[in-house]
């Protein structure tokens, strides 16, 4: 009896729930509802394609329904896997279907109530059903049906269900697999900052692997807005892994719940298997500090003791949570996305290394377009905010991502920033993307990211770095223009003057060498990076012109993106690696009016991954276009490299020590079976994407068929990629 009552209450509340909460479900106004509906459809498509490793092609059409005010038919079609016949009703007909609320990984759909909300909204505002066509690859025909909702039973009402041939895509070609949704709804089409068009444009930027087509028609079936954004990469976002919670993100309530619900037999197993980031040593220390026996069952831990455990979490040295549960877009792809449709503007993007806030891994990515003709030069810059690849359209002012932008002193980086308050001004666009296993929003509406000091710091660092890119770009362009002028003067105008004057007077031509030296009286550096399409390499040329009166001798240092898989080739002058990311050449003495040239190429980078270099020098006298190297910075970089290596080593030794726990026969070695066991734990996080057999093969140096602790440590170190290193993060900040 009681059970039936509960369930009735729940059913009755579904449409009521929708009505009451439509402001944070995204259906509170006719303008916003259409964006939300499009968003639910496109999120569905992107998620399904990602899961099934399909490169998505998604088409959105909005058609104004004639003779009805504020009625629009939304048509969304994708090339996703389609939905198997037996699941269609569930997917479209019941709220809160699916399991995405219960896992810890970066997921797209965290807002709204999914595609069912669209069916619900359509039905509530028009009384009509939603038309669905779905085809899965293994069926010969597509399945079409009209879906409505029984709001009392929280279930779908299906009508006109039939199998059809001739399900085609936008080119009229037969669809192998895909889904089409046609939902009429009360809605209003608009353009501008808060529109379906803008939402899709933003979606295209952060989903560079998707092709997105958008067409809107008025009552008379005339096209009124459209764009097609082709994918810029064939690489799908990497599959994200689920991770266990990290102790630093746990509150006392959840800890108690985890203890109560745990199926582990003892506390040792509880700590090791419920959380990420607790190596054996830490487990022992936590229990020791909390005065808890390893062997007692989790359910028997007293509230006082669990409080003690929580305290120990913050005192004991833990491993950071694994970060491969995140799926950043990656700076090069953001850049490609931003560059689409923007002419000859400056674009800089940056992906920070993953970081951790309160036990939640997160990662910040930023982008900047400077000189964006679509943005007014007088007003504030355009802000594009994203959380886990989802565009945030509303509540810009109250969002941490916006506050991050506002907190940077843009004036120092060359943007107009009156009073250093609010958004900077100018024809620029700044993009901020926060990828996290747990994005904290300010409210249920999930439109603004909540304050968090650690995340804020990362955002600021990222923005300051692209700010420095902008500043360098501006400085460099100004210097380049000046150098170009001087070169034109001595190479073209002056010889013309000499020739003309001599001809007019019938005299011989004077020697221009000493005059040029007097006019220039400096050493100039010209540098250029070009992409060689044929050879698929980046070629860099650095020219040092000595236009001063005396011979000059320099060592020239140039910045390049040093990372795994990148190799310097065709480097005739040789030279040596100075520190990470900096190569150094010694030039022969350059006489007045002569030049020294350095040429080299880089193999292993994608087109656009390297656009310009920074040139530094050692030696007396300035070089226009290059900076004197700061030896202290070089030392600082070396130290940083060593420190980073130490941290990696320390972690590797902790993990190796941990892995040896799998040595069940206490032989001091891991055999194949024991290694497999270890790889299921922390070792698996440290050596991702490798099978135990491969690890054994490559690292069993003495061919003993087993790995000792040292060999395990080496294996870990070798799979730890040194983080990509950027020189300008050491240069003084623009503030």
């Amino acid at each position, binding site marked *: 009896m009681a059970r039936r009552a509960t369930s009735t209450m729940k059913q009755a509340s579904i449409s009521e729930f929708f009505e009451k909460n439509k402001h944070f479900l995204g259906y509170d106004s006719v303008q916003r509802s259409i964006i939300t509906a499009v968003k639910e459809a496109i999120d569905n498509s992107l998620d399904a394609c990602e899961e099934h490793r399909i490169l998505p092609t998604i088409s959105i059409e909005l058609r104004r329904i004639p003779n009805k005010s504020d009625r629009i038919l939304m048509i969304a079609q994708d090339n996703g896997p389609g939905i198997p016949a037996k699941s269609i009703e569930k997917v479209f007909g019941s709220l809160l279907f699916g399991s995405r609320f219960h896992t810890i990984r970066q997921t797209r759909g965290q807002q709204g109530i999914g595609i069912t909300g669209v069916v619900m909204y359509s039905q509530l505002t028009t009384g009509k059903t939603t038309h669905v066509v779905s085809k899965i690859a293994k069926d010969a025909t597509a399945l079409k049906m009209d879906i409505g909702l029984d709001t009392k039973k929280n279930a779908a009402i299906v009508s006109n269900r039939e199998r059809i041939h001739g399900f085609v895509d936008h080119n009229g070609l037969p669809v192998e697999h895909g889904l089409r949704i046609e939902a009429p709804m009360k809605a209003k089409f608009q353009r501008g900052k808060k529109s379906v068009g803008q939402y899709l444009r933003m979606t295209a930027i952060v989903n560079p692997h998707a092709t997105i087509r958008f067409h809107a028609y008025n009552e008379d079936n005339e096209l009124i807005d459209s764009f097609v954004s082709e994918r810029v990469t064939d690489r799908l976002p990497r599959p994200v892994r689920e991770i266990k919670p990290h102790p630093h993100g746990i509150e006392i309530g959840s800890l108690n719940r985890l203890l109560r619900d745990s199926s582990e037999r003892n506390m040792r197993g509880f700590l090791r298997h419920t959380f990420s980031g607790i190596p054996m040593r830490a487990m022992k220390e936590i229990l020791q500090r909390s005065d808890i026996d390893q062997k007692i069952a989790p359910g028997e831990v007293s509230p006082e003791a669990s409080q003690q455990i929580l305290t120990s979490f913050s005192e004991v040295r833990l491993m950071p949570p694994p970060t491969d549960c995140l799926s950043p877009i990656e700076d090069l792809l953001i850049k490609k996305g931003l560059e689409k449709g923007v002419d000859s503007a400056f674009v800089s993007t940056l992906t920070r290394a993953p970081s951790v806030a309160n036990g939640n891994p997160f990662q910040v990515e930023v982008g900047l377009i400077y000189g964006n003709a679509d943005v007014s030069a007088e007003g504030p810059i355009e802000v594009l905010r994203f959380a886990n690849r989802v565009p945030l359209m509303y509540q810009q002012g109250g969002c941490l991502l916006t506050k991050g932008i506002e907190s940077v002193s843009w004036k120092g980086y060359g943007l107009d920033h009156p009073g250093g308050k609010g958004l900077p001004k100018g024809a620029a666009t700044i993009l901020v993307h926060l990828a996290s296993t747990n994005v904290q929003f300010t409210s249920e509406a999930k439109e603004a990211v909540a304050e968090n000091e650690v995340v804020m710091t990362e955002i600021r660092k990222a923005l300051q770095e692209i700010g420095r890119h902008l500043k360098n770009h501006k400085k460099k362009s100004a210097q380049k223009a000046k150098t170009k002028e001087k070169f*034109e003067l001595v190479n*073209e105008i002056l010889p013309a*003057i000499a020739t003309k*004057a001599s001809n*007019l007077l019938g005299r011989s031509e004077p*020697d221009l060498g*000493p005059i040029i030296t007097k006019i220039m009286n400096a050493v100039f550096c010209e540098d250029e990076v070009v992409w060689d399409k044929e050879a698929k390499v980046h070629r860099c040329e650095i020219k040092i012109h000595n236009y001063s009166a005396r011979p000059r001798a320099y060592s020239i240092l140039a910045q390049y993106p040093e990372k795994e898989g990148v190799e310097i080739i065709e480097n005739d002058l040789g030279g040596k690696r100075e520190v990470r990311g900096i190569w150094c050449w010694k030039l022969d003495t350059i006489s007045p009016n002569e030049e020294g040239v350095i040429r080299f190429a880089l193999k292993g980078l994608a087109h656009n991954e390297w656009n310009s270099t920074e040139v530094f020098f050692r030696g007396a006298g300035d070089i226009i276009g290059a900076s004197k190297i700061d030896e202290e910075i070089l030392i600082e970089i070396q130290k940083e490299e060593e420190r980073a290596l130490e941290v990696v080593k320390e972690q590797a030794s902790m993990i190796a020590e941990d892995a040896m726990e799998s040595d069940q026969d206490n032989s001091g070695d891991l055999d194949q079976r024991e290694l497999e066991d270890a790889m299921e734990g922390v070792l698996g996080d440290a050596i991702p994407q490798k099978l135990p057999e491969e690890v054994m093969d490559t690292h069993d140096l003495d061919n003993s068929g087993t790995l000792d602790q040292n060999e395990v440590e080496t294996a870990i170190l070798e799979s730890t990629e040194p983080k990509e290193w950027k020189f300008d993060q050491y240069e003084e900040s623009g503030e």
Partner: protein
Amino acid sequence: MSEAKNREEVIQSLNEVVAEMHDRMLKGTPPTMTLPVRAKTNIEFNQRLGVYKYGKKQTIRDASSLGSARQLLRALHVIEFIEEMIDSEKSSTLREMYYISEGWGLGKFENQNGSNNLAEDLEIVTKCMREDFKLRPEEDGARMIGNVTIEERNRRGEWMTINCRDDVGDSGYGLPYNVEPEKIRLIDEDVDYIMAIETGGMFDRLVENGFDEDSRCALIHLKGQPARSTRRMIKRMSEAWNKPVMVFADCDPWSFRIFASIAYGAIKTAHISEYLATTGAEYLGITADDIEAYDLPSDKLTPKDIEALKAELSDPRFSTGAWQDQINMMLENGKKAEQQSLAKYGLDYVTDEYLPQKLAEFGLGG
């Protein structure tokens, strides 16, 4: 300066400019062109000539910067062009030269102002006239009506006699760009003074009212800032026939400058002031006091007007007490007025009342 020079002299002077550049280059230093500073800070009153001339401040255009180097190259192109014209006995307008410069590659001009200025630069450093360079202005001279007789040599080389009252229509005699004795001879006159008028509207009013005959004067329309030939013609007539010159203009800062260019010499052409300026020319009106005394309809001074008036306060040509008073009064009242505001009192007021009263102050028109 400068009665017409012969071609060897002209070429010689131009070559000196080129030689300055070449000599510097031979010494291993950037080529230069030296010329007087052409600004109000470098004009001085020349006691002997009674006009304002450039002072001793010189500017050296040095090829160390791209802009100056371009100017030197352009100068060389212009010199070459002039020498070619002298050789082939052709002439061209300044505008034609500007278009011809399109073919000069690195030495081409960005706008016609640039080529006009450079032609003036060369006049100044060579002490030649642009007529010597075979360069003609585009601007035509002004119109003149009054009982004076001149001879003009027409394009067939014949001298024709013209009386500027009887032989012309209502638009008057049009001055050619060259008013030197080889083109214009002054033959006879029966006037008491010469009146230069700023605006075409007022010129036509005085012509229609027959003021030239009633008041026994020659009327010359200035067309705003007067062309060189207009100023030269006024100077020649005033000097040859010993006639006073009266300037009748609007009351605004720009009219004051028009007057100064006639009476003292213009800043841009200070190198030939003694040749263009009529010392003793008088400013008849409209003065700042007239606005009050005749209660004329006026306009408010614009920020640009105010800026121009303030600049005139430190212009040596306006350093006399009378001018300082006029300018300060204008700044104080914040008003300016047009010549034609006199029409407030009827079309004949200017010829029946205003001008006779003003002229009487100078002992004229009676």
